[in-house]
């Protein structure tokens, strides 16, 4: 433990494990223990017919840590600086294992279950995963072999050649730069070095496998002084973006709130379940929300707060259906798995700016514009977003009492194109790599999608720019028609509809599909469609 952490932490008798110190994160277990001690019987977790208090949860976490410790001792794999992958289906064991290892300071990378074998191999290789906790056999191409059983179906697999990569260094160097040069920032950096230990982003979107520093810092903030405690009782559906769902679960538990887990394999009807669990918060992804609304289940929607995660915007159709149904009890917050909640949209402004707004930045979030944005974007009042989020952490100093540390996490050039309206609300103008240049004109796929999605004949639509050496990118749209409709009749009509509304920026091809290809998080695979329909 560094002298700085020794100085800042309260004088707790911390049981140090034998041998080399774990790399990071272990003190969070002790801080969580203090939180639990305040109200040990408070409900922490509900799953199936079981209820766990926070004290029982802590016991379970410690139990899992012992199991893992025995397992890694058996195979002589004690190194705390090795990056461990976690691969498992939606289960509470997955949560127990992940959080216990987070507390143990073991750097983790949550592997996306639905990724292809090639994506897995790439992720494991890029991130330098040396060992994997898994509840299922791993594909041979990963070059891993089964070593031992932890408990039940959970096993440890390690790299076949026994060579673990220098993962911790790699991951820390891939973290976003830490802003500020004052004493507070330096102290925060030093603490981050101690607590960095878990990956909450699979990296399938960003290409960066894990951002531990921001996640750990926010976890610590949750334990010490939560700045964003929206939930007291959260229904956890597993149906969000993979990394985001784990992030929410972890944060909820660390806040001392209640997490109600539902297996997605049981095909739960979430509004009904949420009512039964008396949940006040239900984070869902937009895809599932659309499904619920399509089944006209919104009347039973139980939430007081809607988090829309894993997306750059809240679809206009979704807002309209919410508008007026929920009155003052519903708002929408935009969040991502990397920085957590970023904006909040009041219920009376759900339709602000034609439904484009993602709301006002939360008090600790600052959106800026990159001055070097492309001239075409600047002319339209759009800038590439620079997002900074300030987190405060309070630590009890044995001599100086409560110490406030303020730290700013910056997500530089995340690829989002942002527009700021005169009243301060923000809207996304698409991702920089989604908006495409058709000759000299910028075209947003969302503009095409919004137009076509309005038509009753269209069930689903996704627009994209098909690459062309002559035209830059040619606007196109892939769509699914409602059942029973004849594409030969509908497509020419829809084509004319687009041309009337968009002129020469209209999609040059409408491609009928049975289903829109989507990634594991539900996002449409625009790049794949663009590749398939590339022009000369």
């Amino acid at each position: 433990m560094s002298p700085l952490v020794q100085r800042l932490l309260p004088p707790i008798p911390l049981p140090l494990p034998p041998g080399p110190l774990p790399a990071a994160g272990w003190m969070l277990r002790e801080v969580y223990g203090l939180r639990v001690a305040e109200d040990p019987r408070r409900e922490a977790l509900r799953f199936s017919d079981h209820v766990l208090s926070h004290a029982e949860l802590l016991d379970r976490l410690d139990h899992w840590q012992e199991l893992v410790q025995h397992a890694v001792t058996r195979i002589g794999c004690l190194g705390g600086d090795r990056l461990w992958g976690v691969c498992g289906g939606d289960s509470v064991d997955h949560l127990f294992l992940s959080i216990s290892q987070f507390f143990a300071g073991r750097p983790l990378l949550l592997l996306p279950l639905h990724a292809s074998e090639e994506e897995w191999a790439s992720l494991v290789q890029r991130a330098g995963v040396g060992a994997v906790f898994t509840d299922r056999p791993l594909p041979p191409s990963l070059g891993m072999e089964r070593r031992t059983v932890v408990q039940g179906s959970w096993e440890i697999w390690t790299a076949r050649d026994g060579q673990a990569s220098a993962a911790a260094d790699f991951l820390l160097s891939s973290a976003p730069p830490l802003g500020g040069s004052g004493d507070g920032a330096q102290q925060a950096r030093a603490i981050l070095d101690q607590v960095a230990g878990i990956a909450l982003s699979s990296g399938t979107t960003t290409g960066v496998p894990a951002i531990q520093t921001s996640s750990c810092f926010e976890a610590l903030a949750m334990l010490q002084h939560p700045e964003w405690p929206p939930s007291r009782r959260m229904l956890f559906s597993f149906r969000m973006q993979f990394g985001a769902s784990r992030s929410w679960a972890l944060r909820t538990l660390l806040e001392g709130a209640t997490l109600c887990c539902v297996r997605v394999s049981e095909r739960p009807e979430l509004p009904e379940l949420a009512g039964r669990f008396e949940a006040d918060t239900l984070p869902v992804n937009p895809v599932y929300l659309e499904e619920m609304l399509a089944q006209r289940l919104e009347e039973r929607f139980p939430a007081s707060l809607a988090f829309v995660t894993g997306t750059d915007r809240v679809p206009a159709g979704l807002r309209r259906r919410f508008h007026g149904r929920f009155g003052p009890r519903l708002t929408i917050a935009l969040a991502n798995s990397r920085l957590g909640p970023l904006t909040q949209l009041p219920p009376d402004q759900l339709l602000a700016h034609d439904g484009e707004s993602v709301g006002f930045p939360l008090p600790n979030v600052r959106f800026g514009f990159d001055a070097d944005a492309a001239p075409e974007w600047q002319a339209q009042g759009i800038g590439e977003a620079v997002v900074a989020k300030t987190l405060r952490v309070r630590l009890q100093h044995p001599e100086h009492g409560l110490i406030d540390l303020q730290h700013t996490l910056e997500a530089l050039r995340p690829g989002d194109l942002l527009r700021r309206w005169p009243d301060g609300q923000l809207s996304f103008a698409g991702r920089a790599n989604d908006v495409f240049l058709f000759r000299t004109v910028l075209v947003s796929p969302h503009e095409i999608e919004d137009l076509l999605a309005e038509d009753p004949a269209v069930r689903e639509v996704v627009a994209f720019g098909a690459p062309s050496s002559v035209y830059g990118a040619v606007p196109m749209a892939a769509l699914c028609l409602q059942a029973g409709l004849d594409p030969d009749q509908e497509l020419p009509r829809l084509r004319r509809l687009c041309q009337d509304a968009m002129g020469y920026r209209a999609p040059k091809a409408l491609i009928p599909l049975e289903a829109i290809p989507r990634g594991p998080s539900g996002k449409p695979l625009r790049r794949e469609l663009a590749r398939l329909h590339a022009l000369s």
Partner: protein
Amino acid sequence: MPACVDPVDQLIAALASISLPPPELESLGVMLRRDPGRLSLADLGLDSLGRLEACIALEIEQGVLITPETVASLHSADQLLRRIATAPRV
């Protein structure tokens, strides 16, 4: 839309796809077959944006590779039809 073989049919199909197609496409087709040398590109509605859209439609729907710059260098519908007939295919 099924690809056509005849250059006139291919051009008419492409013109029908642009956002501001020329009026009376049917009679335009008749004139293109009868005496294409008398028709200018402006008669076909092919201004700069029209050329862009028509060329994209020719490539996507008919598999004919011809660029807007090439079309801009031509003077009559006759020349355009000959270019379409000899243009590389996708």
